[in-house]
């Protein structure tokens, strides 16, 4: 999997491209987010539009890193999930955990309108 990173203000957008599966993308995502948290970047938007495949390990990594970021005082929001990603998030009841957006501007703006909740 390829991760393209860019900033809008203090929000980091991570564009995920490719497969987010066991040992095929999940470790890249883990390392990228760990580095951002170490750098104090904890307002993250994951653009899921180009995630071609997602398995339970990929979902597990998403949730694990969500917890990491929340413990650091920030949060992760999801942007443009595919229909399939949406379905898997629903099955695993994670639609109640992640805030999901269909457009980037709204996702970025949401960080400044709602304070991150503590764990």
């Amino acid at each position, binding site marked *: 999997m390829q991760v393209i990173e860019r900033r809008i203000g203090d929000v980091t957008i991570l564009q995920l491209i*490719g*497969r987010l599966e*066991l*040992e*095929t993308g*999940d470790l890249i995502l*883990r390392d990228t987010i760990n580095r951002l948290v170490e750098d104090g970047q904890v307002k993250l938007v994951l653009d899921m539009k180009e995630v071609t495949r997602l*398995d*339970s*390990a990929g*979902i*597990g*990594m998403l*949730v*694990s*890193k969500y*917890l990491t970021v929340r413990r650091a005082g920030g949060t992760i929001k999801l942007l443009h999930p595919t229909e*399939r990603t949406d379905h*898997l998030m629903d*099955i*695993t*009841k*994670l639609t*109640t*955990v992640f805030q999901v957006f269909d457009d980037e501007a709204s996702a970025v703006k949401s960080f400044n309108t709602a304070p991150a909740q503590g764990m």
Partner: protein
Amino acid sequence: MAQSPFGRRILVVDDDRGLRHVLAELLQGAGHQVGSAGDGPEALAMLGDGSGFDLVLLDIGLPSMSGLDVLARIRHMASPPLVIVMTADDTSATLLEAVRRQAYRYIRKPFPPSAVVDVVSEAGTPASALSIEVVSARPEWLEIVAPCALEMADRLQSFVLHLEANLPEAVREAVASAFRELLTNAIEWGGKFDPNRKVRISCVRTKRLLLYRIADPGEGFDIDKLRHAAITNPDDDPMRHLQVREEQGLRPGGFGLAMTRSLVDDLIYNEARNEVILIKYLDEGE
């Protein structure tokens, strides 16, 4: 072809000159060294004992000599490269013969060019390639024995997706995802990622159902002790198991069974829970 320090040494075999050209350009752009052949005899002459190439992209519908025959010849070379079969012929018989002859992966034409680059980049090396034992290769009863290595999840999922080519995409995707989750569980928990241990897989197809049975070499598990799996979470806390996994030093995950249960119609374990059957019922029209 000289050993490449970075990319793979790839031979593209297809009688479509345009496609050969496009694939060669694309793969060279991705850093690979690429040769091409327009038919089987030319390909075999270029391959020699196989040691000059890491990977062959092989069309099945070749003139004068079938791609399946080329595949059989490659298999008996002194240093056989990996073979990725690409074909518009998606009949079960062709696919099963490709599995029997140790094709590494299967790509159905037409395909987006980027898919080939992805498959090539994900492929292992010829030296590390593991064999699949085909016990039965009838379209209505496929039975194989495979090493407990993670690469098998990708390889076998690609065959399963194409084996059910005549089913609606949503059904194929659901079954392939469920199959991959259960197979990964079998390889990881039952086989401990040990390629010397084997997982046995049967796929049975009738007019009304698809049935997959996966038997792993492990001792099974006690479902009451699966606190590291999402299926034991209370409805209002879908992340509770992650804390258990963290305490037990397990990788993030644990959503596999919850996902699988939602993707197929029945999921049945044996008493030891080292064998599992998944069933997807088909409508008359499917």
